């Protein structure tokens, strides 16, 4: 019994995910619990997942990035325009897209670091600007007629596994390595936990903070490219509201809004929870209005349960460090 409890505590997010899967599985076993649907959920989640991992880096170091959705939009129309109007090859266009995302991240980070504004506000402003730029790049119209091979990265398979999933997994592995095994990763946590302390310990906090935004921008760019391939056309609104979904996923996945805390594994669970919810409710044919209520309630329930559980745990602090 106690074992179960401590398991639930530690793998709280995983438990929610499993409960949701079982729930939908019981209600619609024939269509929900199939192998292919599971793959679909993961495939659908990959784009958001990649962006969420970028967000995780930023949040771990104490920042936040509300512009990521707009970055996805900009990158996806930018690459689409390069591929069609300018007739660029796949590789240069992709590289340009990734570089663009990284650049946006660098600029974002630099602004935040130099001026000392709240990341939430700075990136909110950038979100608006970038949304405008996305429209301007394509004149407000979706860019279609992509070359066929441009769809690969969004719709292709290697063996039975969809390519976006493979990209997602690679991103997960690298991110986990960086965060857990390298100095830089630990420095990110240190900065998020107490920036002044990190600075006084000789960590170049400003440079590393900018780096997290650059990583976030890079991964948003990557997400934008996959998004483009998946919907086979560059949409100026491709990433609209994505930042809120990613934020939700990250927070459900235990990433702290105040920095210093956040694990890749649980964040991925958070992403999958959102994916399962979207997929499951569509399969269940639930009306959009009720979907909103249900989604909000599950979101609220998850964070509340987590909050309560942490409160209880926090009450029994082992202050004596023996």
């Amino acid at each position: 019994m106690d074992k179960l409890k401590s398991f639930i505590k530690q793998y709280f997010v995983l438990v929610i995910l499993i409960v949701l899967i079982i729930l939908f599985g019981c209600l619609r076993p024939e269509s929900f619990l199939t192998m292919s649907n599971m793959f679909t959920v993961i495939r659908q989640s990959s784009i958001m997942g990649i962006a969420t991992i970028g967000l995780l880096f930023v949040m771990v170091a104490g920042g936040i990035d509300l512009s990521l959705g707009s970055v996805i939009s900009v990158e996806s129309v930018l690459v689409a325009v390069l591929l069609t109007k300018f007739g660029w090859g796949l590789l240069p266009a992709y590289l340009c897209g990734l570089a663009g995302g990284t650049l946006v991240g660098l600029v974002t980070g630099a602004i935040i670091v130099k001026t000392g504004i709240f990341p939430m506000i700075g990136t909110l402003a950038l979100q608006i600007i970038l949304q405008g730029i996305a429209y301007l790049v394509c004149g407000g119209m979706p860019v279609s007629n992509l070359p066929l091979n441009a769809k690969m990265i969004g719709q292709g398979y290697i063996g039975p596994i969809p390519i976006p999933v493979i990209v997602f997994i690679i991103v997960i592995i690298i991110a986990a390595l960086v965060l857990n095994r390298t100095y830089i990763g630990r420095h990110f946590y240190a900065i998020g936990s107490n920036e002044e302390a990190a600075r006084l310990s000789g960590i170049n906090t400003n440079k590393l903070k900018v780096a997290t935004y650059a990583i976030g921008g890079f991964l948003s760019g990557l997400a934008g490219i996959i998004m483009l391939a998946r919907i086979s056309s560059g949409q100026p609104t491709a990433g609209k509201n994505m930042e809120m979904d990613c934020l939700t996923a990250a927070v459900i996945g235990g990433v702290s809004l105040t920095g210093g805390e956040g694990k890749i594994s649980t964040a991925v669970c958070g992403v999958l929870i959102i994916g399962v919810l979207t997929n499951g409710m569509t399969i269940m044919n639930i009306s959009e209005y009720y979907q909103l209520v249900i989604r909000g309630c599950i979101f609220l329930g998850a964070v509340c349960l987590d909050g309560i559980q942490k409160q209880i745990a926090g009450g029994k602090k082992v202050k004596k460090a023996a």
Partner: protein
Amino acid sequence: MENILEIKDVTKRYPGVVALNHVSFEVAKGEVHALVGENGAGKSTMIKTITGAITPDEGKVIYEGKEYTELNPILSSQIGIEAIYQEFNLAPELTVQENIYMGTKVNQSIFIDRKELAERTKKILKELNTNIDPNVRIKDLTVAYMQLVEIAKALAKNVKLLIMDEPTAPLTDNEVEILFKLVRNLKKRGVSIIYISHRMDEIFELADRITVMRDGEVIKTVNKEDTNKNQLIYDMVGRKLTETYPERHPKLGKTLLEVKNLCGSSNEETTFSVREGEIVGLAGLVGAGRTEIARLIIGADKKYSGTVCVDGKEVAIHSPKDAIQHGIAYVSEDRKNQGVLLKMSIRWNITLPILRELSKMTFINFKEENKCVDKYKDALRIKTPSINQLVGNLSGGNQQKVAVAKWLASESKILILDEPTRGIDVGAKQEIYELINRLTDEGLAIIMISSEMEEIMGMSDRMLVMAEGRIVGELDREEFSQNQIMKYASNITD
């Protein structure tokens, strides 16, 4: 002797204050150089200049013969300067081990060698003679342990000049002893140390040379042998003062506070009482549970059982608000997080607990408010250009005074002082002691928690010694002795 560090003609101005005024100062290789001075004299500012945490307006720093006009923490860390600041600089979400090695590499690759790290951490902690689990998160530690981690953190680097800004303030005698041993060891290894403290005994025990600061200027630098306590205090405050405790002539009245079988999440049932005009000292080692008891009494933490009686009547206290209404005030030990509002003015801080009383029909009477604030600002000699100054801009000691002033203003009958003189200079300490005495004369009941053995022996009428969350001994004034207290305090611990 060769100097490892010289600072020349350094000036640092803040709006309304000159924190450092053309200061010059030097530290020789391998010496322990003590820095003393009143609150706000500019000690912390000076060491921040040395580590590059702040940039001075004028002046330069010469370290190992090389001149630096613009230092920063990264650079200073690279050249072997480490500091333990007055305020904690730890990452609460990270573990002890990660904090100790924050910003330091133990190997060359970009990947962390966790095994190596764990080993080294263990070694350092052993050197400090503590049993902290390297994998506990900082936010789960008490203040004293945090301080030990701070020290460990400085040791983990290749340090040549170690700066300690009041390192012993949150420590009890046991840890202080360990710290002293450490300082002597480091000195033997050729490390230079700048040591800031308000405790005269420590200064005379450790220092080779002593520099006295006053009002942002260096008054003088002397060898330890060439001075004595009284002289030093005179230099610091510019007037005669002796570091003795005011004589107490307690006139004990009826029992004001009675705590019966009080029990919370981490202490056992505790029973004691305090009478009118009495000072009861709570002594004990780090983590003995003194703070916990205080927080239970004022309803800041949830109690499991037990009762609190004020004036013979049982009172229900569920929150600090209830406690204040029943005349119990608590000066917290953690000033930064629990004591003062750093972003708010002195005025707002001092009147916070009594604002309701200063208001008519919820509207604040500003005249009354200012009068009240001025009174306590003067009474405690809070050094500030204006009562509208943000508390965050005050020196550590003056912040503490604000924290105390706030509760004096509330005119409670029962006062719980948790480390009330932490970080306060000798002059101000005297004032606070006298104030406490005056308050008991007026019939207040006071519980005083202090980790400074001298202080608690000097001030208390009666002493309760705590260990592992319960009271293990009670001593009357005539029974006070360091030995006796230590025996009680550590008996059970090991």
